[in-house]
Every structure is written in C-alpha cells, then in structure tokens.
C-alpha cells in the first residue's frame, strides 16, 4: 500500500493558503434573496381586500445593514399605491414590522438614477400582461436591520390590497430586494440576480362589474387606456393573429366607428382614409390613436357616452367585429 505523504514546510503553507482562500471566497460570495412561495387567492370579489402572504429566505454571507424592499406588479386601475398596506415578520425581528410605500421617483441603489418603480419595470418586466396598464409599487421597511454574515433569515410578508370593483384578470409579480444593493449590484463578483428574488404566481381574477380587463388572454382589440373620457387620446389596437378573421392577411386596416352621445345621438365615421387608417406595428398588429372629440367632430355642448367599432379592409367590404364576428367591439367612456 502506498503511503500518503503530507507536504511539509513551505509547500504545506502553500497548500494551506490555497485552501483557506477557497473557503473564504466560498463564504463571501453566494448571497441570495429568494421568494419561496406566494399565497394569493385565485379570485377575489371586487371592492374587498386581496390578502397576500409572501414567504422568503435571505442568506447573507457578509454583514450588512439594510431595509427590506418588496415590489408588487399590479394593474394601474387598482391605484395600489394608495390602497395597499404591508408588514413583515422575520426570524431576526419580533412582531410585525411596518413597511411604507417608496415614493415614486425615489432612486433605486445602483439604478443609474431611475426610480424604484421604473427600475422594477425595466429590470423585471410586466410578467407578460398584454394590456399596457400596469405598474410596480415598492414598499420598504421603516427600519434598517443589521444582519451578521452567514445568517439565514426567514421572512413572511403580509400584503393587503383593497381592489376596486372592476372586472380584472391579471398576472401579478413579486420582487424581494434590499435597500443597499437594489437590482444591479455585482459586489463580490456576484451576478445582480443574486441580490433580488422574483416570483410569478398564477393569474388572479377580480370578480367585479363592467367590461373585463383581461390582461392574460390575447384579444383582437382592447382600447387603452381602460378608463377615459372623450377628451382623452385613446389607442384602438387590432391584433389580427388572435383569431382567424377576414383581415388576417390584409395589407391595410381601417376603423369603422360609431359614437353615441349623451343626448342619444349617434355619429358614424366609417371611411377608408388616412383619418381612419391603423398603423402597422408588425406581426399582424395594428393600432390607431384617436381623440374622440375631434375624430367624431363633436360640438362644444356634445359629449360621448360610448363607441362601437369594426375594422375593415381598404374596400370596406371585409368587416371584423368582436370575437372576429359581426357584432361590433364596444367601449364605454368613464373614469375610475
């Protein structure tokens, strides 16, 4: 049997140094923030509180004093900045710890000067929601907490959002981060993704009133913004690839619309001109921005309650309505 020979002298120190360095580097790198689970109901009744529980684990490999930051992706119709409360408990604190909304525009760490909300949108995205009426809100603990190195902290965040009565189907998203590193730190050579954690649960349905704001399922046409008056500029899109329809292969698409005034009159604008022509966005997507007051030529005393519309080809012969059928799309004006 061959004898194992241990190095001695200078050679031994060389090995000790190498092993120690490897261990130290192993300890220093590898900080992580992970969202383990998010408990949120599949559906909630409009006008009530949506309760959410977020469980997370933070592993530190370096001493740090930071505040906890939680980001939530919500539809703008919820006005969640004003209708959300958040607290957390953890394995290193006692009792619920208060958290406060980070004011819009407050720069995020290492974010190049952009605010937390914008940084979350740019970095994490919009979770695949199809209607561009979403926003990130971010809360921060009122206190910064000193955490030792090589510590594992369990965190449970309680989030309550009072949702309005609107019918909504939406993909929420969550982020956990801390106030020192933000979303872009690469300290100790770690990738920035080590300094925050994300979670994308199943879509949530708010059972309320009015037209369903469906952010999840592709639709032929959903007017943006969801809430407007006739004195807003509204965007009327047409996604020709969602369902088989006579305009799937059209080289140009036009709007054929009827406005209904509060006095009960109807005004039709159904022509194939530059005024009604949708702009191509590529991949079968089209859209037209209109100012309803100007588009329908309203007099100062007139106002619109709603519009109905179809899409046509350049001849006006092929018409596409709701669900690719013959009924028009409809949009009702009103504010939240």
């Amino acid at each position, binding site marked *: 049997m061959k004898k194992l020979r241990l190095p001695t002298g200078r050679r031994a120190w060389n090995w000790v140094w190498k092993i120690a360095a490897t261990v130290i580097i192993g300890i220093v790198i590898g900080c992580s923030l992970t969202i383990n689970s998010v408990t949120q109901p599949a559906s909630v009744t409009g006008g009530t509180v949506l309760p959410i529980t977020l469980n997370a684990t933070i592993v530190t490999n370096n001493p740090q004093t930071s505040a906890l930051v939680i980001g939530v992706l919500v539809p*703008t119709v919820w*006005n969640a900045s004003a209708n959300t409360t958040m607290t957390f408990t953890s394995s290193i604190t006692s009792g619920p710890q208060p958290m406060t909304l980070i004011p819009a525009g407050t720069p995020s760490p290492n974010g190049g000067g952009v605010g937390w909300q914008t940084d979350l949108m740019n970095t994490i995205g919009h979770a695949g929601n199809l209607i*561009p*009426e979403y926003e990130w809100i971010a809360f921060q603990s009122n206190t910064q907490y000193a955490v030792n190195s090589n510590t594992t902290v369990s965190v449970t965040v309680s989030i309550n959002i009072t949702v309005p009565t609107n019918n909504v189907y939406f993909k929420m998203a969550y982020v956990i981060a801390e106030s020192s590193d933000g979303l872009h730190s690469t300290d100790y050579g770690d990738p920035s993704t080590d300094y925050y954690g994300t979670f994308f649960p199943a879509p949530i349905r708010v059972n309320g009133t009015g037209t369903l704001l469906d952010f999840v399922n592709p639709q032929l046409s959903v007017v*943006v*913004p969801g*809430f*407007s*008056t*006739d*004195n*807003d*500029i509204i*965007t009327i899109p047409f996604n020709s690839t969602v369902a088989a329809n006579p305009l799937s292969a059209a080289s140009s698409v036009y709007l054929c619309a009827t406005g209904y005034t509060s006095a009960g009159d109807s005004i039709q604008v159904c022509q194939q001109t530059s005024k009604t022509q949708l*702009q191509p966005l590529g991949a079968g997507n089209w*859209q*037209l*921005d*209109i*100012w309803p*007051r*100007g588009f329908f030529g309203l007099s100062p005393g007139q106002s619109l309650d709603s519009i109905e519309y179809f899409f046509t080809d350049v001849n006006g012969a092929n018409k596409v309505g709701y669900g690719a059928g013959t009924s028009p799309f409809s949009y009702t004006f*009103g*504010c*939240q």
Partner: protein
Amino acid sequence: MKRLIKINCALLLGILFSCKVEHASPPNEAVKNISGSWTITDATRNGTDLTSGFNFSQFRIVFSDSTYTIDSLVPFVVSHNGKWAFNDPQYPFSIIFTQTDSPSVSTPFLFPVVNGVRNIVLTFSPGCPSNTYQYTLQKAN
C-alpha cells in the same frame, strides 16, 4: 526710531481703513419669456409615447405678454383663448391659464434647454384624472 514707528502705524492704519466691506448681492434671475408661437414636439400618455401615432402638427399656441391664442385640435390644458400667468415670473413652477368665462387652470411648468433648444414641458389631465399627459413644446420656426 520713534519716527519709524509712527510711519509704520500710519501705514498700517491706512491699509486697514482702505478696506471696505463689499455687500455682495445675488444676480437677479431673469423673468421667463415665453412669447411666441409654440408647437408640440413630444407627447406621452401615462408614460407611453403618442408622438408617432397621433398627429399633433396642427396644434399651435401663441403666447403674448399676458394672453394666449390656441388652435386646440388636440386635448390640451385649455381649449379656448384667454389669459396666462406664472405663479412666479422669475422662478415659475406652474402656469395658470384663464379662459374667457371659465375658472383658472394651473398646471406644472418646466422650461428646460435640451440640446440647445428651449422647451416648455406641461403636465396635465384633460380627460380622466388617472390619465396624465406630458407635452413638450418648442418654438415654431
């Protein structure tokens, strides 16, 4: 020796009294001048660009000393001619429009120079309060 001391004292006193306290006052900030005809060069709704999809080219607003005239072919802070004023002529943070026979409307006002060109940036909600528009105006050529 005494004479030398006297001369030195006289010189010292002369130096001391030749100094006078300078009362520095900050330069006066110029009153912001927005007179002229302005057009919309950039527009957003809730942060989404509208400039490429909506025709703003027909819009004009002409400011004179205290009045404005408008071709309101787009949603704007006001839709009729009237008077205007700054909340502070030297350090304006808002501009106040007063249409004839209508209450005054105040809206945030910025007056930055971008790439050597003076801009007026207005933020307002002509329709639903939840929809915020930001127009950037530049002087018409």
